[in-house]
Structure formats: C-alpha cells, structure tokens
C-alpha cells in the first residue's frame, strides 16, 4: 500500500485518486507541471491532459527551450556521447555546467579509438569554464559580454570574418585542425542565443572538417518528454489542450505565468523522480504525484498527494539514458512498488471519463 494524503490527512491511494478526479473534473484551466517521470507516466499525463483540457509545463523547459527554439529556426548538427568518446580528438567544453557531469570525466579519461583520429591524443579545451585543475585542459577566458558573445567572436574568427593574433584566433585554428571535434555544453547555461551561435559555428566548421555539438541533457527527463510529446502531439512539450486540439506555445503554457495571472485553477505536479517543487503549487488546488520516500511524500506538499514507485528503482520504467543518448528501460530493483505514476494517472483519467459518461 502506497502512502496518500488528502488535505493533509493520510488516506489510501484509491480515495486520493477519487479526490483528484473530482478536482480535475470540475477544473476549467488545469496545469500539469513537473513531468519528471518515466515514459509510461508521461504518456498517461498526456492522456489525462487531453481529457481535462490541461496545459503541460515541464520543469525541464528552460533547458529544453534553449535548444528547441533554435532547432525550429535553424536546425542543428550533433553527435552522441558514445561517438564523442570513441572518435573525438578535440573536445571544447563551453561554460561551467558540463564540468560537474560524469560524462566529462569519461571523455577526458579516454582517447579516440574509432575513425580517422583513432590513436591520437585527445585535447580538451575550455571556453569560459573553471580552472580547477582536475582535468587537464587549455582554458580560454570568456569575453566581457558573456558566453553567447564569446561564441559569436569565436565563430567570426573560425569563419575568417575576424583576424588577428588573439586567443580566440588560436582557438579557432585548433577547431579547424580537428579531425572529429565535439563541443559540449549545457543548453540552459549557454542560453538560446549562445546555442544558436554554437550551432552556427559547428555547421560552419563542417565545411572543412567534422565537428559536432553535444548538448548535455537536463536532469529532469526532459529529453524523454520531447520524444513522447512529439509522437503524441506532433509538437514540443509545452502544449495546451484547452480547445481539445493540442496547441504549442511555451509562453502561454508556462505554468508559473498561468498561475501568476490567475488563469489556472488547478494543478497536477508529476514528479516520480526528484525535481524542484514549483513554488506556486500551494497557491491553488493541486495534486502531487511524487516518488515514495522523497521529501515531498508528505501531506503538506499539495492538497492531494499520492506517493508512487520511483522508476528505475522501486518500479520499472523507461527513462532517458544520458550515457546512451536514448530511451532505455530499467526493471525494478527487487519487489516492484504497488503503484506507478502511470497507473495513478490512468486511474484518475478513467474516473473522470466514467463521471462524464454517467453525466450523459
């Protein structure tokens, strides 16, 4: 039996599901937020949102949309983590965020083993990163204007639009000389303008060599959500079903904005994997579906709280695998938890559908 609470009082999951169905059946403008969960739960969240006319607002949005806007405007040129580790003779790390990721340790510890750079040394360069000495690299400082401006400068040198014996001219020469170069960054840190510049730089470099972008995934299953969103609605994740036709609009369906401006009247926070709780969650009637044992699995997290199995730990789940750069499935370690987030969402949807049928 999983833990559940309604208005702070402990109850069973069935009663909490019934209360959630009652809340969403009468909501006019509900918001489904968080969406930090496995594929089964994300599919179920879309199913529920379609029925109740909700909008979807992922916690991963800032990182996702730093890339998605650029993707739909100009496209992209990228590679996978395993290809970068196996082939790259030059790795450029942009910003601070990648240095905390295990991937950087992996790629720094290996040499290229496949392709024309096999057997050569791997050079790690840093643009605007730390100089902590843990990984041997050559550091290039960021320009006063920030990362995006620095990348623009670098692109201009690489393209031959700027000339002179500067640090960035040296960096640009190194990029052009690579056999298989990779630029690693975290899109949320680099920002939309910076990502667009980086992708432009990468595309320019491919006129003379092979160079690819490797944006690191957000930690909140945003990449898994993109897959589900695209095949379910043909669109990116920030979508609303208010008119019962999926409409994509990241500004309009920003949950914080909808709550701040008084549009939303109910919320569902889906976070069966750890993610930050929206600071506005307590300001409207809400349901929280959270991982069992998490700090949020308490009665005061939301009006209705249902604790569920944690995908990849206490229950099976298909999740974004950053090392593989794709979806992979993990079984539960040991006896699976009684309840999954997907099952709870499907049950809420079924209750609402049944209520609608009865009303007819």
């Amino acid at each position: 039996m999983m833990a559940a609470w309604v208005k702070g009082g402990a109850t069973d999951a069935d009663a909490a599901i019934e209360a959630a169905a009652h809340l969403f059946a009468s909501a006019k403008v509900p918001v489904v937020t968080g969406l930090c969960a496995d594929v089964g739960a994300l599919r179920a969240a879309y199913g529920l949102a379609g029925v109740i006319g909700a909008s979807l607002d992922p916690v991963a949005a800032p990182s996702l949309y730093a890339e998605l806007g650029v993707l739909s405007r100009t496209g992209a040129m990228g590679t996978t983590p395993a290809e970068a580790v196996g082939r790259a003779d030059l790795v450029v790390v942009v910003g601070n965020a990648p240095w905390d990721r295990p991937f950087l340790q992996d790629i720094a510890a290996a040499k290229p083993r496949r392709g024309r750079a096999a057997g050569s040394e791997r050079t790690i360069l840093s643009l605007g990163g730390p100089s902590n000495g843990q990984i041997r690299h050559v550091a290039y400082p960021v320009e006063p204007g920030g990362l995006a401006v620095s990348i623009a400068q670098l692109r201009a040198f690489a393209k031959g639009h700027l000339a002179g014996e500067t640090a960035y001219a040296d960096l640009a020469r190194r990029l052009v000389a690579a056999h298989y170069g990779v630029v690693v960054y975290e899109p949320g840190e680099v920002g939309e303008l910076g990502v667009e510049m980086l992708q432009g730089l990468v595309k320019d470099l491919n006129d003379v060599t092979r160079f690819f972008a490797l944006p690191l995934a957000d930690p909140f299953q945003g990449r898994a959500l993109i897959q589900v969103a695209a095949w379910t609605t043909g669109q990116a994740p920030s979508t609303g079903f208010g008119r019962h036709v999926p409409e994509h609009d990241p500004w309009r369906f920003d949950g914080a904005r909808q709550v701040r401006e008084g549009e939303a009247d109910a919320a569902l926070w889906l976070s069966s994997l750890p993610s930050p709780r929206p600071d506005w969650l307590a300001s409207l009637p809400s349901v929280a579906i959270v991982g069992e044992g998490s700090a949020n699995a308490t009665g005061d997290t939301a009006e209705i709280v249902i604790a569920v199995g944690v995908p990849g730990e206490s229950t099976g789940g298909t999740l974004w695998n950053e090392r593989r750069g794709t979806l992979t499935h993990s079984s539960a370690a040991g006896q699976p938890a009684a309840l999954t987030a997907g099952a709870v969402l499907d049950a809420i949807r079924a209750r609402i559908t049944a209520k609608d049928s009865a009303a007819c």
Partner: protein
Amino acid sequence: MLTLIKGGRVIDPTASRDAVGDVWIEDGRVVAPSDRTPDNTIDAAGCVVMAGGVEVHSHIAGGNVVLSRLLLPDLYASESAPEGHPFAHAGGSAAWIGANYARMGYTTAVEPAMPPSNALATQLELADIPLLDRGALAVMGNDDQLLELLRQREGANAVRDLVALTVATSRGLGVKCINAGGASAFKDGALKLSLDDEIPVYGLSTRKIMGALLDAVEEIGVPHPLHVHCNNLGIPGADDSFVATLEAAEGRRIHFAHAQFYAYGLSEPGNPAGGFRSAAERIAQAMEKHPNATYDVGQVAFGQTVTISLDILRQFGGRKGANPKKWILNAGDAEGGGVVPFLYKPRGPVSSLQWAIGLEMMLLSNDPERTILTTDHPNGGPFTEYPRIIHWLMDKEARDREIASLHKVIGERSGLGSIEREYTLSEIAQLTRSGPAKLLGLTDRGHLREGARADVAVYRDDRDRTAMFARAKLVLKDGEAIVEDGEVVNWRSGRTLELSVESDKAMEKRTDAYLEDRFGTGLDSFAVPDEAFAGHDVFEDVACRA
C-alpha cells in the same frame, strides 16, 4: 460472429479474382462461403472490395521522425481531423498517422529505418500508432561492430549471428542497409561514396558490406529480402548506382528502397552538371533481367515536405537545397540521421521531372507485384497522396491534364506523355496489397483467400479514383470495422510484427562485452522488453522462412 460482405466487386489478384461476389469473415479471418445465416451482412453493391493496404516503406516512427516534427512543427497542421481520439487532430502524430492510413484502407505499415541503438524509442512510438499493424526494419551497415567484424574477415557465420542478434534485440521485422559504409565514411571526412569506393579506416566497400548482409539475411531466413538504400541517391547518374547494386546482388533476393530517386540518367553523357533525364526505361529493363529484385517507388508529390534519412552523407550534401533554409544532421552511433525540409515546386523543372519519373516507372513495370507504391513518406511527399497517384495510374486523361499543367521538361526528358497504359484495379491491388505483403513475407494478408486475416477495404466504385481511395466506405481490421464512410469509428490497437529469430549465445556474450566497452552499458540497455509497454500485448511473431 459470421460476417458476409455481399455483392461487391471483389479484387484479389492472388486468386485471379475480379468479379462481383461475396467475402465471408469469421473470427477475424476470411473463411469459405457458408451455408449458415450470417450474423452481419454488409451490402457492398456498387463497391470494390480489396484486402487492406500494406505499406512497406514509410517513415512513421523513430528519433529522426521526432526531430522532423520539431524542425518543421507546422508541416502537418490541420484543422480537419478525425474525431474520437484525443491526439488525432495533432498533425503528424502517431494517432494522425494511424487514422490517415486507415481512412485510405491501409491496415499494415512498416517503418523502414529503425536504428538498433534507438530501438526501444522507435518501438514505443510505433506501438502508439493506432488501428494498424506495424513493423520496423533494423538498420545495419555502418555500425562499428559489424564493420570491424568484416575487416577482421571473421566469416559469414559471425555476420549471420550478429544480424540475427540485432533483429532479435530490436524486435525488427527485417533488415535494411542505408548507403552501407556511407555514414562511417562521412564521419571520416568523405563526401561521396560509390559501390566499390574504399571506406576510410575499415578498408571495406559498400559491395562487401551489402554482400555480407544479403548472405546473412538469406541464411537466417528473413522473409523480407535485404532492404537496400543504394549509394548516390538523387544525383544525376544515380541509375548507374542502382544497376550496379542490382548486379552486385548476384541473384540474391534484394529490395530497393525509393527507386525513383535513382532513376536519374545523365542528360549529357559524362557531364553530371548537365542535369538528369528519366532512366525509368533502363530501370525497367534491368528489373526484368533480375527477377530476384523488387523496388518501392518513392513517388514525388508536389508541395512542402521534410526529408528524413539515415543516409547522413547524402543529407549533408543535400543541406544546401533545404527549403526553408534549416536542417538537422546527427552523426549517430552508426548512421544517425539527417532531416532536411524540401519544397517540391509544382511547376519547377526538377520536381516536375521527378514526379514524371515515378509514374513512368510504375507504368513501365511488367510486374506490379514487384513495384510497390510508396512516396517514401515524407521524403517524396506524404502518404496521403496515394489516392491521387492511383488516379493518375488508372486514368490517362487525368494524367495528361496534370502533365499539361507542369513543366515542359516532362516531355523533353521523360517518356511519360507517350504511355497509354492505365492500371486496372487488380494491378492497383498488386501495387498496394499483394505485392507489399508478399515482399514482407506476411502470408496472412494482402489477399482475400480463405485463411487470410480479415483486413478488408471496401471502396465506392467511383471514376474519380482520388475520391474513391481517399475515403474508404468501410475498413475492417481483423474483422472489426475501424472506418466507416471515411471516418474512424473504432480506435483499436493493432500489433507490432516482429521476426521470430533465435540469437546465438556466444554472439550475445561477445556483443554484450563489446557494447559494455563502447557504451559503458551492455546488451540489456538495447533491449525492447514487454515490460516497457505498460502491460499491453503489443508484439506478434512472424516466422522465418523454412
């Protein structure tokens, strides 16, 4: 329940059947005529009755299809969409794909390019396509493990075992190779690759890789022959690549993907810059000499589309023709993928000629069962164009009207205008039903003989073939009505067809170690477990050839 479809013109070329008659159905199968009173009688008077359509090559799922939606989100925007499914309005979504195939009378569709490294995501997406049975072909031919194995001359058994393991792990229905060695060569700086060019680092050639895969597919007994995307797609002189690849098969079964994109002969001998002219006649003659081969057409339809291909070498070359000017290219774990928007201009010379060549190929074919109708969705255009294409094949007058509205290059560089042939309904059934079903080795569909799966399309017989084939009067899937009067009435789920193939334990162990070393995680992370499908019974076995 015993169902009788009564008094329709029944078209089943596999039984030489083209006459007014009945079709009996019970328990999801076509059965012999019965003396019993049917529980349900469907009046098909004035209608044409065919088996459900079978699609062999349509990009309907996978990471590159996802990227195409994100690159061009407005491509399929639609205000008119099927009712009754929460996401069928969503243009290009899985529900939209299932609904639009079903409305045309199609009941099975195959995604031809599933990267084994992304198999789970592809299979999850396929499983969300309602109404149809689905399947996917596992792509090989650029992956380091295979190329390394060939470089080390490990022998045909090792290749066979790796292919079998790949199909089993990804739960594919068959095997495809896409510009074999081309993606690998691109990553090492190459921009062009022909059949016998050396692939950098590995010292192999497309011929060697493809030959090894052709042998492996035969040895395993995969019903669908190796599905081949040749070198040099879409460039003037690509007909040479097509014919050379056909001859390189040396009599082994081979299927050519989107052949129209290779039927481009040089307009001026020795000068690729002089453009191309139709090589449809050359391709038709070559196909006659090689009964071991089949092809799907890859017909072009006018308008905006987005090209999706794992042939990253070709897609990189095609980036400069992107319209609108944006494109995606991913150098993946083997192939990766390229997504390049493209506008087939209705009156442009190149698009007009491409359009004409596809039709010319079908009209010159002396064996429609080896000539499958596709648009290589969405590369040549959307699959929703099939009814119009069928119309042009069946109606010389309509074809001539269309030609008259297009660029004069059609008359100068193709033979389409002089072809009098009009396809019969039986030939259309060969092109869209019996041919593709046989090609995939799916003996239970594509026909209406006793024992067939009761996948049936009933069309109002209408001289306007576009209207006729765009909205079926009735579509049955496994004997259940899913479409009535062109609208979906029952949003049931189909099955994903997977080849039942055993993998060799020693190859499993060896591959697990290889993957662990390369990806930091073993064979398990490439698996497509039933558990990932939330308890739904998604897959159905297809047996290997005896």
